[in-house]
């Protein structure tokens, strides 16, 4: 076997120029594929991570709330339920929210707004909301105030220190009305959210929307210790709420379904381009190996004559193909790795459609390149398989070789 390896390796260098050209073309294709995939996968990872930060790995919700978004479908998150959830070891944090549509008005202006009641410190640590503040201050849990998104503030003509009136319908049909002083103005990435969002401490939201049911929440985001634990924790939570009439559990991938679909559609384009590059790789290797095989028909015939089994010759041909392909992958990875690593640590700004799409989800439109180990392993595996496929026909010619004809020629 070591001899066969030696023979194969030396054989591919018999035509130094041809092999070099082939390997360089593999290197280039691997380089392009890796770079492209690294950007795509990196931005997907980034989006998904940001999405999960917003919705949590899991959410406990009122039944029907996800579809209706009506506060009447909200969940009474009472102390018994809370205690049970808190007892689960694999949960890092739970973040309750109480959210509803309402009307916001200041002076002569009135606009439909989306009010999010949350625990300010918690959302800040998860989403760094305070960093997006462009004016005023970030509230604490016990404050009674709001922060308003920039575009909405501009529309209403409201500023820090002014008083915003919120009017709407609360839990089970009660009237929700309140006056809140504006503590800060916040700039959100999503243009849509930037024109509608109002944040307030959840205690204020409870007083506003549900004064008689202080435990009401529209969702409780659950952060597990690790994303891989999602399924396990989901099962545990389901067991807890089994007898609970109102509650239901949603996983992040269910909640981010639309985003995941968009990613998938975007990804398909990348896969097609990668496929084309792979075909180029395969053709290059195929041509080289086939020529190498046809040129050596007489040599092969003599080897079979002296007693070398065709299967061993075939193995040499396969090894040649693999060595050519894998040299290209290794070369490609070596030159691509530092670049990917650099842009992984120093993400570039995301241009175009993808950037807009990310902003819609309130995700910083930067593109950290993925340096996922699997991506490199996959390249290796794909090129390995391509090299095997490229060797198929040349191997067939070895088995079909007519010994006497080849020797006589």
């Amino acid at each position, binding site marked *: 076997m070591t*001899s066969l390896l*030696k*023979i194969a390796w*030396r*054989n591919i260098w*018999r035509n130094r120029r041809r092999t070099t050209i082939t390997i360089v073309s593999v290197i280039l294709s691997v380089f392009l594929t890796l770079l492209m995939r690294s950007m795509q996968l990196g931005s997907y990872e980034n989006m998904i991570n940001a999405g999960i930060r917003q919705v949590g790995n899991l959410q406990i919700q009122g039944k029907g709330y996800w579809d209706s978004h009506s506060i009447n479908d909200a969940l009474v998150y009472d102390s018994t339920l809370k205690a049970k959830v808190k007892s689960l070891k694999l949960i890092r944090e739970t973040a309750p929210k109480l959210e509803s549509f309402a009307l916001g008005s200041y002076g002569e202006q009135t606009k439909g707004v989306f009010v999010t009641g949350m625990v300010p410190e918690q959302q800040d640590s998860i989403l760094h909301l305070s960093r997006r503040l462009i004016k005023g201050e970030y509230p604490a849990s016990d404050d009674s105030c709001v922060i308003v998104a920039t575009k909405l503030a501009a529309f209403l003509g409201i500023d820090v220190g002014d008083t915003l009136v919120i009017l709407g319908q609360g839990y089970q049909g009660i009237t929700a009305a309140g006056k809140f002083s504006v503590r800060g103005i916040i700039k959100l990435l999503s243009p849509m959210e930037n024109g509608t969002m109002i944040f307030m401490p959840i205690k204020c939201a409870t007083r506003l929307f549900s004064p008689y049911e202080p435990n009401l929440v529209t969702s409780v985001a659950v952060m597990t210790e690790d994303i891989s634990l999602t399924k396990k924790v989901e099962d545990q939570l389901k067991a807890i709420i089994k007898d609970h009439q109102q509650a239901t559990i949603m996983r992040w991938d269910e909640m981010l379904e639309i985003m995941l679909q968009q990613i998938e559609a975007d990804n398909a384009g990348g896969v097609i381009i990668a496929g084309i590059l792979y075909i180029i790789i395969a053709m290059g290797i195929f041509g080289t190996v086939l020529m190498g095989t046809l040129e050596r028909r*007489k*040599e092969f015939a*003599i*080897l*079979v*004559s*002296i*007693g*070398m*089994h*065709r299967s*061993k010759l075939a193995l040499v041909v396969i090894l040649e193909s693999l060595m050519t392909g894998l040299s290209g992958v290794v070369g490609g990875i070596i030159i691509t790795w530092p670049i990917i690593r650099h842009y992984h640590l120093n993400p570039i700004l995301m241009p175009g459609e993808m950037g807009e799409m990310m902003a819609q989800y309130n995700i910083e439109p930067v593109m950290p390149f993925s340096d996922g180990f699997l991506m490199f392993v996959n390249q290796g595996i794909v090129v390995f398989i391509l090299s095997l496929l490229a060797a198929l026909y040349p191997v067939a010619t070895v088995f079909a070789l007519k*010994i*006497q004809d080849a*020797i*006589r020629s």
Partner: protein
Amino acid sequence: MAIIQIRDVYKTYNEGKIPVHAVNGITLDFEKGDFAAIVGPSGCGKTTLLNLLSGLDTPTSGTVMIAGKEITHLRSHEQIAFRLHHIGFVFQTYNLIPVLTALENVAFIMELQGVSKKERIEKARLLLDRVGLNDKLHDRPSRLSGGQQQRVAVARALASNPDFIIADEPTANLDSKATAELLEIMREMNRELNVTFIFATHDQRVVDKATRVIRIEDGKLTDDVRQEGKG
């Protein structure tokens, strides 16, 4: 007992319009230690006969027995294994694996046979020394002269410990000095180790050295004489 027994062998090629009777009823034995030259005009069937007795080709009818074993009905991979263990080859050209050194070429055939690494390196050195190439062990074929390449091929043929060695026009591309050297080496091996050599040749120098000359015309045996090989 004869190591090779050819009985009533015919080989007809039907590829063209008229069938070609390349071997047309030959019965012939080779004895252990023969140093035999098969001669005859071009196209008379020498190569075909050699191919039949190495299993590279199968007769249209008749039988070929080697060391008591009928080889004509072996399956293709059995024939390859049979050649590996029983027959040595020296071809006119392209004998050696170009990417292996002289030593590696000789050792390789033993590797195919499953001989241990230590043993095959030792034996390969010994044989290359015997054919006068101990200073060329690590040279690839491209750096050897035609005569040196043929000597490596002889060493390789001997390395597999065969029942006999087939050499189809081994000297056709060599000058007279290289031919003389190669013949001398083969004759020595033949004498000392009692290895059987069977040549197909047009080369009078080979015929002169041979201890047996077999003449073929139109696929038929016309003469078979034993002679005192000169030298």
